[in-house]
């Protein structure tokens, strides 16, 4: 029995992984961590903090999405049984 995710699922996983890598790069760029700049504030939080938190939430959402498509096919079948 095929243990690997299907090609379509693997593609979705790879897209998620690419998005996560992109978000991590952004979080290490001046977009999120500009030197010595706290503005603009959002909900009283400085830029690095609110944009860092937003990045975190997006990556968790992508992790959830990736897990929907990156399961072993035979394990899924067993769970259904």
């Amino acid at each position, binding site marked *: 029995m095929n243990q690997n995710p299907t090609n379509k699922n693997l593609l979705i996983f790879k897209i998620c992984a690419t998005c996560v890598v992109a978000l991590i790069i952004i979080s290490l760029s001046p977009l999120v961590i500009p030197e*010595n700049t706290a503005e603009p504030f959002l909900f009283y939080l400085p830029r690095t*903090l609110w944009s860092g938190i937003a990045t975190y939430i997006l990556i*968790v959402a992508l992790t959830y999405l990736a897990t929907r498509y990156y399961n072993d096919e035979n394990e899924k079948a067993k769970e259904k049984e």
Partner: protein
Amino acid sequence: MIGYLVVFGLMWIGALAWFSIRSFRENKTPNDYIFAGSSLGTAIGLLTFAATLFSTFTMMGMPDFFRLHGVGAWIFLGISDVSMFFFIIWFGRHLRRAGGQRGYRGLAGLLKDCYETPWAGFVYFAGAFVFLIPYTAIQIRGIAIFLNAVFPAAMPSWGWSVGIVCIMLIYSEIGGLRAIVYSDAMQAVILLVCLWIIGIFCLVKVGGVEALMEQVKVQEPALLSVPGPKGLFTVQFLIASLFAITMIPVTQPQVATRLMIMKSTANMNRMAVALGVFSFLILIPIIAIGFYGAVRYSDVSTAKFLSHALFFDQWKPVAALVVVGLLAAAISTADSQIFALGTELRSLLRGEEQKIMRTTRLAIVVFGIGALIFSLVSSDQLVLLARVSFTGTALMAPMIITAVFEGMRAHRSLIVMTALALGLFLLSLASMIPDKYIGIRIDLLLAGIVTLYAFVSSIVAGRKEGRDC
């Protein structure tokens, strides 16, 4: 206060004793003792993983990091953590496949099999030992200096350290990993509850989020941006930390073991997502505690800040719960690490199972004593010491990934390369060689070189003598 402490302390000790006895009865085979039956569900997997990951480093070190270095601490730990959780679903699947095929006994044993030489196992075990013992030691030291600051007349800090190691060794030796997993679950919940109570209390004391941020802006505006007042959070530092923390499931045996003993890959995946949520809930109150310290205790020592913010400023029952929570946090991480080192040693041993188990149990005690001795001589820079541990073990990640990942080929020369990188990193820590070359930190440089070499050697090995695990 003492009354609350006695009540909470007895409840905690009682729970640990009950978990040990229950686990002792449930453990029928050596594998039950070492791998807790290898059938963890999502919830228990989440709690034991979280308790192992979030330790004194998180509960004490991170508030201090926010207090001293500011918002960059979120990128340092939050982004690195969530990157690790995503990585778990990818790496975990490959590890479980490779481990399942080879009959997983530990990462050292798996590497030995994949590279078809015991040297792979030896290098991994040596690296894990050298960098995990200090990490374990800072758990013990962190809580010992806190307890000594809070109860200076009770006993010296080494006395607290000895007590902590004794408790940890007793229940680990009796109940094995199953006892550790059960106690981790309880300790993760205590940790989360404590942090939220303290975080809310700190916010209330300073008048809410707006007032807190306004006060930080007035007192030390550099805390609200990177690189922070002391210039710590440079991009290089953050990238090296990201790599080191993301690689924790690959290189730290106590974490890799938890991926292997999940009931299924689906359970492991659900756990990874749940960890993202749990970690978020852990980190949010830490920001409040850290900035509360920046406003109220900006110029005091770490021990004084923590003893006030976590204890003296709190309502008495909460303060008592914090003491138990901190003990729980320290012990839940330290016990897993010590036990994992024992597991790794076992995976390298061959022969009669009873004799191997005796050696493993004895080794766990020896590792515990080693961590205790190191805790008595280490510094108070908890987060930076932890980071050194993560960075050191991360240098072994390419060697493990090459062996475990489907499609990659393990080349023996990578073992030499990894040993060399570990040696150079240790020399830089001992200030015997520079810690920067052409403006790049040595940890980042070594990680880059070993990773690149792993890819190249995998391609070469694919053509010649490659070993597919």
